[in-house]
């Protein structure tokens, strides 16, 4: 379960992990309604967590997938392997 006091990156990573797992599970169990409901629940929480992270640290995704931006912070360090 995702706790409130975690850092924003960890929250994003935890929610994404749940979504990766549910996505792979749904690939082979596409009619499991419980898994689908859980996927949808995590997906909406994921969108919120990403917005929180991006407000503090900048865009997570390239090519416009993190929405409009006031200044070009995509190239700012640190990159993931430097954290």
């Amino acid at each position: 379960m995702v706790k409130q006091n975690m850092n924003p990156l960890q929250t994003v990573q935890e929610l994404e992990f749940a979504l990766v797992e549910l996505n792979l599970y749904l690939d082979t169990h596409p009619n499991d309604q419980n898994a689908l409901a859980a996927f949808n629940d995590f997906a909406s929480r994921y969108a919120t967590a990403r917005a929180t992270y991006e407000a503090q640290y900048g865009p997570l995704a390239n090519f416009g997938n993190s929405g409009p931006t006031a200044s070009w912070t995509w190239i700012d360090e640190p990159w993931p392997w430097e954290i």
Partner: protein
Amino acid sequence: MWLYEKKLQYPVRVSNPDSKMAKYIYTQFGGPNGELGAAVRYLSQRYTMPTGRGKGVLTDIGTEELAHWEMIATMVYKLTKGASITDIKQAGLGSHYAIWDSGIFPGDSNGVPFTTAYINVMGDPIADLHEDMAAEQKARATYENLIRLTDDVDLMDGLKFLREREVVHFQRFGETLDYIQGYMDSKKAF
């Protein structure tokens, strides 16, 4: 189309620089059972899968493997960061340094360059999915070897995560194989 996410899938931490361990971990960057081979294998095989389920599983697992490839590079980067020439020589990475400096080159633990000869793309979905299941078990065994080669609990945490993903992928490929086998049998029935 692929999107890049400016974050790791799972945190990579190391307690101390360890060039010798970096040399061992290289095999998962560009070796026979490594993450690059896994990604290229699955993303190449998906085009000839007969069902959406097969195409989806290979697309999703192939994409996750690229995230694992980045985690492995991060382990090597952090383990070798700031290493002195003496450290590099003692770790057996002197020949790597001579050719590639501190570049993170896709090769195995012995510096042998990555080759697509490590993978296969048969076009036959049954043969391909069997290869994928074997590949996941070989990667799982490799992670167990790497875990035994270190006593760094922070590094081990990342390696254990990657080991567990191999187990999950094996499970999903097995389910996909069962499904596609049934699909192909039903086509033969008429």
